[in-house]
C-alpha cells in the first residue's frame, strides 16, 4: 500500500524518489490524498519518532499558526502560507514550515525547518551537520552563535578588567597618598552628596596643634609619621558612614552623618582630642600634639551649601584656636560656645 503510494508520488507528482527528496529536504513530509504520511525526510523521522508511514499527518504534526488543520482540505487551504507548527513527539519545540499541494494524485508536501529552535534541537536530538541540507544555514547559525558568544565572553571579561581598573583609578584619585584618607576631591564630592540627599550631618574641621614644632624639631619624616598616626586615630574613632579626609597640611575634616546634636558632637570632639594628645611614637621619637576642632552643623532645613559650611567650620575653628587650643567650638548664628569648663 505504501509502496504503491510512493510510486504514484514518484511518477505523477514530483518526479523524485523519496530518498533523493530526503537529501534535498531532510525535514519534509509527503502526505497522500487521504491525509496519511507516505514518506518523510530522515531528520524529521529522527525528531518525530518511529513508524510514521501510513499515519494521519495530524497525529504527527500539530499545526498552530495561522490556524490548525487536521484533514486534507484544511491542510491544502494553508498552501503557500508560512506555518508555525510542532511535532506531537516534541510539542515544546516550535518549528516553521510550508505546505504545497501536489498535482495529479492530490497529496501534499510539507517541508519543515527548525528556525530559532535549531540550537535546542541540535542538543536534544544529537544532530550533526549531515542532518541538515547543505543549502540550509544551520551550520552558519550554529557557528555564529558560538563565535558571538565567545566574542561576547571576551568583551565581558575586558569590561570587568577595565571596570576594576576604573574603580581603583577613581579610588586612587580620591585618596590622600600619605595617609590613605579621602582627599579634598572626595571630600567635596561626599559633601555635595550629603547636601543633595538632604541628610543632616556635621562638618568637623580639625587642625593639629604643635605639629609645626614636631616638624621643625624632628624633621619632615617624623612629621609625616605623626600625620599617618593621626589619620589612624581619626579613622578608628569614626563610623563607616562618616568620611575622614585630609584637608591639606596638618588639617583634617570629618563629615559625621546624622549627628547634629551639639552635646553629642562635643563629646565626640573631646574624645578625639584626648586620643590625639596621647604621646605618639614616630620613628623612635615621642611626639606630642593636640588639636582644635571647629564644627558646622547642616540640618535638613537650613539650605546649607559647601562654601557656607566650610566658612562656618573655619570660623568655629578660629574661635577654638583663639580660646586656647585643644578645644571644640561650634558655629552658631548668634553666639559661639566656648571651651568647656576645665579646658
Amino acid at each position: 500500500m505504501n509502496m504503491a503510494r510512493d510510486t504514484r508520488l514518484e511518477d505523477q507528482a514530483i518526479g523524485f524518489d523519496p530518498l533523493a527528496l530526503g537529501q534535498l529536504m531532510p525535514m519534509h513530509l509527503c502526505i497522500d490524498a487521504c491525509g496519511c504520511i507516505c514518506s518523510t525526510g530522515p531528520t524529521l523521522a529522527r525528531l518525530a519518532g518511529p513508524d510514521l508511514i501510513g499515519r494521519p499527518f495530524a497525529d504527527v504534526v500539530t499545526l498552530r499558526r495561522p490556524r490548525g488543520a487536521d484533514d486534507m482540505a484544511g491542510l491544502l487551504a494553508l498552501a503557500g502560507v508560512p506555518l508555525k507548527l510542532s511535532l506531537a513527539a516534541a510539542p515544546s519545540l516550535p518549528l516553521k514550515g510550508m505546505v504545497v499541494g501536489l498535482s495529479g494524485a492530490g497529496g501534499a508536501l510539507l517541508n519543515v525547518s527548525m528556525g530559532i529552535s535549531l540550537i535546542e534541537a541540535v542538543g536534544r536530538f544529537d544532530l550533526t551537520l549531515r542532518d541538515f541540507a547543505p543549502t540550509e544555514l544551520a551550520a552558519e547559525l550554529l557557528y555564529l552563535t558560538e563565535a558571538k558568544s565567545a566574542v561576547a565572553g571576551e568583551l565581558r571579561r575586558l569590561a570587568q578588567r577595565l571596570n576594576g581598573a576604573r574603580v581603583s583609578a577613581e579610588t586612587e584619585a580620591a585618596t590622600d597618598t600619605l595617609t590613605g584618607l579621602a582627599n579634598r576631591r572626595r571630600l567635596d564630592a561626599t559633601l555635595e552628596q550629603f547636601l543633595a540627599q538632604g541628610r543632616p550631618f556635621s562638618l568637623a574641621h580639625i587642625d593639629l596643634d604643635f605639629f609645626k614644632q614636631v616638624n621643625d624639631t624632628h624633621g619632615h619624616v617624623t612629621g609625616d609619621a605623626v600625620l599617618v598616626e593621626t589619620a589612624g586615630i581619626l579613622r578608628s574613632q569614626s563610623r563607616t558612614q562618616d568620611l575622614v579626609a585630609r584637608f591639606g597640611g596638618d588639617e583634617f575634616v570629618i563629615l559625621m552623618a546624622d549627628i547634629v546634636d551639639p552635646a553629642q558632637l562635643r563629646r565626640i570632639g573631646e574624645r578625639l582630642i584626648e586620643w590625639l594628645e596621647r604621646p605618639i611614637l614616630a620613628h623612635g621619637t615621642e611626639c606630642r600634639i593636640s588639636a582644635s576642632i571647629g564644627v558646622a552643623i547642616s540640618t535638613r532645613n537650613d539650605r546649607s551649601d559647601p562654601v557656607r559650611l566650610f566658612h562656618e567650620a573655619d570660623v568655629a575653628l578660629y574661635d577654638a584656636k583663639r580660646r586656647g587650643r585643644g578645644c571644640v567650638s561650634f558655629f552658631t548664628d548668634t553666639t559661639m560656645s566656648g571651651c568647656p569648663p576645665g579646658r
Partner: protein
Amino acid sequence: MHGLLNRAIQCFLVDTYGGKCWTHVARVAGVEPGGFEAMLTYEDSLTDAVLHAAVAHVGLTREMLLEDLGTYLVSHSDHEALRRLLRFGGETFLEFLFSLEDLPDRTRLAVPDLEMPELELAEDGEKGFLIQCRGGWPGAEFVLQGMLRAMADDYGALALLDVTDRRRDGATLTVSLLDATFHSGRSFSLVAGCP
C-alpha cells in the same frame, strides 16, 4: 594588529615556554605589564617586536615559531572554541579544506576588524591542493600551516603540508591528503560542551 592575535601569541609563549619566557619577551618588546587584551587593537610594530624577541629567546626560526603557534591554537584545550568554530567548516577534512575560502568571511562575521589573508583553494593532481594566501600579515601562511596540520589531526586525516612559494604579497601552501581516514580523530558535537 588585532588583540586576538597578540593575545594568542602571549598565551602560546606562556603555555609552551612558561611565564618567565613571556615576561622576558614582553619586557624586551615593551608590552604593558598586564599583557595584551584580546578585544583591543595594537600597533603592528608591537607584534613584530614581540615575535622578534620571542624568536631570539626561544631559539626557533620565525617560521617555525609561527607554525607552532598555529598548531597550538587548534590543539590546546584552552582554545577549544577556535577548534570548534573551525570544525563547523565540514564533516570531513576534505569538506573543511573546501570551506577554507569562506574562512575570512566567517571570521569577519564574528570579529569584523580581525585581518585575515584571503584564501583560494585549487586542486593540484589527485588528493593534492594548493592554497593561495594573499594579504594578511607577513608570516600568516605559517600560522595557517600549523593550524591545518592540527586540523588534519583533529579530523583523523593524514596530510602533508608545506609552504612552497613565498612572495611579497602572499604565499602558496601545498596540501597532500594521503589518507582522509587515517585514524578516528577527535570527536565533534554541534553542541558545545558535549563529548
